[in-house]
């Protein structure tokens, strides 16, 4: 299937070996393994990613109705049988996590910083459809503070990609392999908050609430002690919570059936906290300020401050 406006579809690198998993693994067990394995993963030499794709050949979404309803209720997605991109991310996330907790995955699960996400929904996935989920890691490359790596998750229906999500993480202090692309970042310009279009008052339990629907119970989101252990004064909101909420506020009617959804993360959102949000038409954002020519641009920052939390786009494909 071809989709107007998209570049070539992301697919598993040809050299990667496909390993079948019988089912989507449970995140709890993966986290335990990740926590245990993290200590042993220290910077030594160049980062080499395992050339493996995890595949769950048949994931039946029919049993997800209650889970979907809980997700829609929390994020503000309308009740619908079409799975939002954020929900597909949640479905595929454990498979990607399984790659990251492999013994030969060189970076520690805990302590990696989520930098950005680029997601494409190429066709709608409906509740009840049986899907295939694939995930792999690719493209370890230099970042000024270490190495960044892409975790790619793909959801296929009848062999065709329906969802492709690229999550980019930073492992501080690690070294990129030879031949890796140079860091593509330019110094960040001073940023001034635009006028908000919405205000999100996030309660102390926001991390636990999204943890419950996403399965991502990383202690930095669910317990103040856990957050302190990683250098945060309090729990922080999941980046994907903010991004998924912005996606929901654009809504199915405006993002269309096939769409791209991106997010870039800056400073984390401490909980409880108030985030001012501007979700604007790309055409309404001043010249040069919009990352895309169509669709929506969203920004989030600490209410009353210029502390930037996230920025992203949602555009129909």
């Amino acid at each position: 299937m071809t989709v107007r406006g998209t570049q070539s579809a992301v697919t598993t690198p040809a050299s990667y070996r496909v390993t079948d998993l019988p089912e989507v693994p449970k995140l709890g067990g993966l986290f335990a393994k990740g926590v245990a394995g993290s200590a042993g993963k220290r910077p030594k030499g160049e980062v080499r990613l395992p050339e493996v794709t995890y595949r769950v050949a048949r994931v039946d979404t029919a049993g997800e109705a209650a889970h979907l309803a809980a997700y829609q209720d929390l994020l503000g997605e309308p009740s619908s049988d079409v799975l939002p991109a954020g929900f597909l991310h949640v479905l595929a996330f454990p498979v990607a996590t399984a790659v990251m907790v492999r013994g030969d995955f060189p970076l520690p699960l805990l302590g990696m910083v989520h930098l950005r996400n680029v997601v494409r929904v190429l066709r709608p996935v409906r509740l009840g459809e049986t899907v295939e989920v694939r995930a792999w890691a690719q493209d370890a490359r230099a970042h000024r503070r270490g190495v960044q790596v892409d975790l790619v998750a793909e959801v296929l229906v009848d062999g065709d990609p329906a969802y492709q999500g690229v999550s980019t993480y930073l492992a501080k202090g690690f070294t990129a392999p030879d031949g890796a692309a140079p860091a593509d970042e330019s110094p960040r310009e001073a940023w001034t908050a635009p006028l908000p279009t919405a205000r999100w008052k996030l309660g102390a339990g926001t991390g636990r609430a999204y943890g419950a629907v996403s399965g991502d119970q990383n202690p930095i989101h669910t317990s103040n002690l856990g957050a302190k252990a990683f250098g945060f004064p309090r729990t922080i909101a999941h980046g994907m919570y903010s991004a998924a909420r912005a996606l929901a506020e654009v809504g199915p009617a405006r993002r269309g059936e096939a769409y791209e959804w991106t997010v870039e993360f800056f400073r984390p959102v401490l909980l409880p906290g108030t985030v001012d949000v501007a979700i604007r038409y790309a055409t309404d954002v001043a010249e040069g300020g919009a990352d895309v020519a169509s669709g929506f641009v969203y920004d989030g920052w600490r209410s009353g401050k210029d502390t930037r939390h996230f920025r992203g786009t949602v555009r129909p494909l």
Partner: protein
Amino acid sequence: MSTTPSPVPSTREAVIIGGNRIPFSRAGKKYVRTSNQDMFTAALEGLVARFGLQGERLGEVVGGAVLKHSKNFNLIRESVLGSSLAPTTPAYDVQQACATGLEAAIAVTNKIKLGQIESAIAGGTDTVSDAPIVVSDRLRAALLDANHAKTTGAKVKALLQIRPKDLAPATPSTGEPRTHLSMGEHQAITTAKWGITREAQDEIAYNSHQNLARAWEAGFFDDLVTPFKGLTRDDNLRPDTSLEKLAKLKPVFGAKLADPATMTAGNSTPLTDGASAVLFASRAWAEERELPILAKFVDAETAAVDFVHGHEGLLMAPVAAVPRLLARNGLTLDDLDFLEIHEAFASTVLTTLAAWEDEEYCRTEFGLDGAFGKVDRSKLNVNGSSLAAGHPFAATGGRIIATAAKLVAAKAKETGRPARALISVCAAGGLGAVALVESV
């Protein structure tokens, strides 16, 4: 957007006979424990008494309340049943946030114009002091589950879902459901976008109090208001306020924006309790009963804006509705004798005027050739508006219609030529309703 006037369908006239309201009172004062039904019935009874409508079967009574308890599903009908109108007078409720009262008037006048009814009362009521309080969603879900449960065990299990924090009641707020910003915060954003100054806002507020006070003193409201619960005048009115006093108030909205916060309790409307009602009829019905005819309710227009994604300010819909209404009637701002622009906030009036004066805005948003026009401030809210009178949401439309009708009637009598008033009411949800009233 097309600016070609669509023809106004030719129908018979709907005329305004008169209005009545109770004095508006700041929340938590005189009308504590007074229900919407009590207040609307009082406004209705005053109108019935004024025009001798006891025992009369009217075509319809239409109105509503913005903050309404679910038990008040037939609020207006129940008020009619408690009034001395004939119990055979039909009624229904409408709700369009702050435009409720004006929308009710649009509804009944359309029926009169079409010949479906001969007479009608439109109005509205709102109380913040007696506002419904709802339980939290989690408590509601648990109670509903328990109610639907078939066995005692299942009922107990459902009730055991309740957690202490679920017991906290939810009071109604003026927050927009999609943005979680209060109306004041939304208007602060619009104020910042248009660069409206604190001084300009305070001046609007000052004028509102001065004008309303003068109108009260001159007896303008003598036949528009019925005393209620010991109150004879709007108790938010501050005839002695000054620009200096207003300048001392601390901003209450927009504190989190980069632009200076300018909106205070003085230049924003207070939460208010009150009710209003306006009597409309066909000309024949009024003449048959030898009732006075103040004005015609000529035409109306509603509009909505996309505020959710910041393309337009929450309260800016009337800005779009007015050019459409005037174009359809072949009029410009210069053809108006009075502009009654509801003062949700002083800055709402100012952002409205600023937008109409902005060439580029009027070109891109409305497809006009240039600026819509400049409003002659001497025609604006000449007898005060919501900043001074207060703003019991659904009651404001009726207050303004009655004032506008009296103003054009007096002006026409004075000058011997027709007089026109424009009514503009902004509302939550990015809504706006506007109407044209003309002397007969």
